[in-house]
């Protein structure tokens, strides 16, 4: 029984069957990569996990609790954090404030009216945010406004915000898209290091095979809304079904 159990999930957009009977089981503490050609339904599936989309049928169970019908903030409070394909950060605020918001959400829950406390006088939150900024290597830039960061740094900031919440499950949607090779390798190291020290389960969507094979313990290949293969990384490369999905049915 995995920490995330997806059963018979279907999602249709008009005439397009985006997800077709998806079954997926993610083992606790593992790094599970989902790969597949464009339009395979990877991001759609992730959207069903965080409350952005509601599947037409099926169930999504996290830690024994159904995620379907929950609001995004409830799913997050249950322990699921997500890094988006394009970095979603608070662009007008400083890096510190960005991470402090996540720290407050972790400590104070979905709503707590604290109109007379002082953000900067809250040592616990400050230290916690500081620690998480250091973890991703952004501590020296903490007073910068987030919109001034490079794309790679924005992603690392978003990762710091997600990590500050101590999630049980971290969803990463193409965490290295648009990064240079050096930045990509830094991110891989960062994710590996955090994976070891905190034991967070991760689901990664990625196109870059270098990233996938460096990180994943388990790989699911999707094509046309359906998982076609699930296996360990070393068995995936030679699988004829996978080659067919990527090369588009060579025997046709």
């Amino acid at each position: 029984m995995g920490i995330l159990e997806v059963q018979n999930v279907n999602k249709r957009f008009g005439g397009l069957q985006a997800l077709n009977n998806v079954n997926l089981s993610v083992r606790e503490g593992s790094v599970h990569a989902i790969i597949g050609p464009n339009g395979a339904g990877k991001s759609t599936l992730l959207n069903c996990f965080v409350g952005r989309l509601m599947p037409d049928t099926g169930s999504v169970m996290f830690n024994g609790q159904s995620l379907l019908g929950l609001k995004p903030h409830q799913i997050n409070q249950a322990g699921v954090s997500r890094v988006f394909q394009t970095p979603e950060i608070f662009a007008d605020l400083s890096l510190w404030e960005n991470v402090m918001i996540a720290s407050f959400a972790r400590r104070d829950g979905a709503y707590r009216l604290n109109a007379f406390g002082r953000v900067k006088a809250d040592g616990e939150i400050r230290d916690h945010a500081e620690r998480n900024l250091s973890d991703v290597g952004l501590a020296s830039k903490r007073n910068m406004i987030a919109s001034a960061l490079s794309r790679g740094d924005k992603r690392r900031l978003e990762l710091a915000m997600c990590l500050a919440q101590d999630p049980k499950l971290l969803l990463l949607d193409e965490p290295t898209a648009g990064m240079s090779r050096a930045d990509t390798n830094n991110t891989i190291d960062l994710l590996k290091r955090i994976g070891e020290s905190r034991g967070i389960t991760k689901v990664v969507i990625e196109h870059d095979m270098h990233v996938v094979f460096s990180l994943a313990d388990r790989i699911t290949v999707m094509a046309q809304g359906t998982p076609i293969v699930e296996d360990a990384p070393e068995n995936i490369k030679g699988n004829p079904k996978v080659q067919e999905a990527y090369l588009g049915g060579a025997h046709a």
Partner: protein
Amino acid sequence: MLEKLRNNDTAIMLAFTAMVLLGPIILAPFGAGYPDLLQRFAIFGIFAVGFNILFGLTGYLSFGHAAFLGIGSYMAVWSFKLLSMSVIPAIILAVLLSGLFALVIGYVSLRRSGIYFSILTLAFAQMCYNLAYSVLTPITNGETGLKVLSSDPRILDGASEGLPLPSVLGLRMIDTWRGSFLGMDVQFNVGFYFCAVILIIAFYISLRIFRSPFGLMLRAIRTNQARLNYTGINTRPYALTAFVISGMYAGLAGGLMACTDPLAGAERMQWTASGEVVLMTILGGVGTLIGPVLGAGFIKYFENIFSKINDNVLSGFLDFLPETLREGVVWVMGAFVGEGWHLTLGLLFMIIVIFLPGGLVEGFNRIIAWFSRPKGGDKATARVPAE
């Protein structure tokens, strides 16, 4: 770092308090040192400070805040009629009732964001305005407006002799001491000082909200509401709390209007009044602490000055011009003053929005930066008044 910041806030509060309390003296040379105008500065300052908590922090642009202003006024006058001529119960009830209305209106309006939110609030305010004129006439006294009468019950005061006047701790709001300062006539008015003390408290609360975790969440709503939801924060109750607080500020301002002049009319709820507070906030500087107060003072001052200038005054100014030319100039300038002062306001607003999107506060910041650049340094002290 921490200590410096706290000192900074203390400096802001001290400077603000001094400016407000010395208002009658500071503004006397500008022809604005009389009670009626000073009271309006303070009251609209409170209105704008509260509006800024919603608009400046969360980015939700309400076009219906005048409804809460009107509700506060009616409630205060009813308190004068039924309870007591003391202003204390009047403003407390005004704040509570407007808060209740804000809760209901905000709960419905905040289901949408952006332009749809603005339209919903506008619709609610116009509904209040039209109800006050029609079916609610028994409560609002329709077009005539709600007035205090000597025959009202006033269960706490008992029957009063003569025309009753609002008062606080035995001092009537209209009481004024006249004095002389450096040869100027200065007037210290009870009504103004009552409003001034409340303005200072209101400003302090706004300062604390700006610095609090709650204020941080509100700024995060403006910046990226979706991310905030995916970060485990339920954004709607935060936005609703901000809406209710700003509605209560508006109700407080409305109550104070009735305290300084005990009557209430539906025109206070009209959409033009809602638009005015938007102008004040933008003109002064959206999302800045002091901006809304500056904007409110700026608009009320120019409204007063420009609307009092008529063609005769203009002719007096332009006495040096030959008569034919003078008539032409008076005719052109006449369109911008007196009844037409809104034209001047409109032009000023356009100039500020185009050249100074951060409002008057940005203007001051630029002037300070411009002056401090050649000398270098001293930026920390220069920034205090601008914040």
